[in-house]
């Protein structure tokens, strides 16, 4: 089967800033993104969990975007500008997709 090489940007971000990020992605020319809930984990400030919390503060979400390689910088720069002051991790990985024209 024919496959196409793309880049996946994965942003693990504190939940209160999620809307800021998805609003930015809506303004940027990306074809889509996926937001996933994250149950818990451990980071610089120790263990965290979203169980029982009535507030968005203290919880995290994961947002992933798949883009063509030539568009990576144009998406990554404003995204990183927004994310860098918040709690989060940005990773970029190589992925293969089947319907290359979609990204």
């Amino acid at each position, binding site marked *: 089967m024919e496959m196409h090489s793309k880049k996946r940007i994965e942003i693990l971000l*504190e939940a209160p800033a999620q809307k800021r990020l998805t609003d930015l992605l809506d303004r940027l020319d990306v074809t889509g993104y996926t937001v996933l809930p994250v149950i818990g984990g451990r980071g610089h400030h120790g263990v965290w969990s979203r*169980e029982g*919390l009535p507030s968005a503060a203290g919880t995290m979400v994961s947002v992933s975007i798949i883009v063509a390689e030539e568009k990576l910088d144009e998406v990554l720069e404003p995204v990183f500008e927004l994310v860098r002051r918040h709690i989060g991790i940005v990773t970029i990985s190589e992925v293969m997709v089947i319907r290359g024209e979609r990204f």
Partner: protein
Amino acid sequence: MSIVDLAVQNLASPMVLFFALGVAAALLRSDLSVPEAAAKFLALYLMLAIGFKGGVEVSKSGLDPAMGLTIGAGILLSFAIPLAGYFFIRMTTRLGAIDAAAVAAHYGSISIVTFVAATEIVRGLGLAYEGYLIAVAAVMETPAIVAALLLARRAAPAAGDGPREGMGPLLREVATNGSIVILVGAFLIGWITGERGMSMISPFIVDPFRGILCLFLLDMGLVAGRGLRQGARELSPPLIAFGIYFPLVSASLAAALVVPLGLSVGGAALFITLAASASYIAVPAAMRLALPEANPAIYLTLSLGVTFPFNLSLGIPLYAAVAQRIAG
């Protein structure tokens, strides 16, 4: 009833004991937990019920000219308390300006669950309260955030890390956050539908209220205990002391306004409790956006792990006793 009797009665109430159970379970590393969605549902239920009851009270008593004055006093307190809090933190702890401003915002804003717990204590004493205090609670959420952001901007203008979050959109988000919308919305619906509305939904919002409050406080205990276990190292002794004495400072400011505002004893107890409580739902989320440099472990642990348990166990009976002395 003396302060001691009030405190003992409160400490032996199911609400406080369920909160203590949650704290103990978290400290014992039990796997007891309330799922996030269930916790949000419980919070929604409590806001809806307390908002609706307040609206029904206003429909029964009619519009009181003191309502506008009390709302104005609430806004003033919410703006002034962070200024005092910031001063105390900077004088007594080593916290930087940004962390101090973020903590101060939490103490100027209010905790609706502390308010709900106080309404139960006031009801237990056989006292009535002004239903419009729900509206006062709603307006006291945001001015504290404005005061804290002004303090932070004055103390540490944004440097090379890009422009800060604009205040306008942030305040709009806080003012329209889900808990305020359901609280004010249920208040208006209670006001419009009055006793007829109450008789229609009281099996849902009156009878199960205490049980659901206990379940929510169990969850709060779990979150507070977990926060204390993980975040306690962020809190220095002077900061922990602030979490206990500063609510008394805020309570004193509110107590000075009770007589001029003409509040009833029950209303005075709740108004003082509002001033003394510290937010842990709306303000932490707003601070993550407005002051992301501030360490959330400090303000969340202090507000939820120190001040909330203090207010729930000893603070509210004390405020009720003070209210009985000055407004009785």
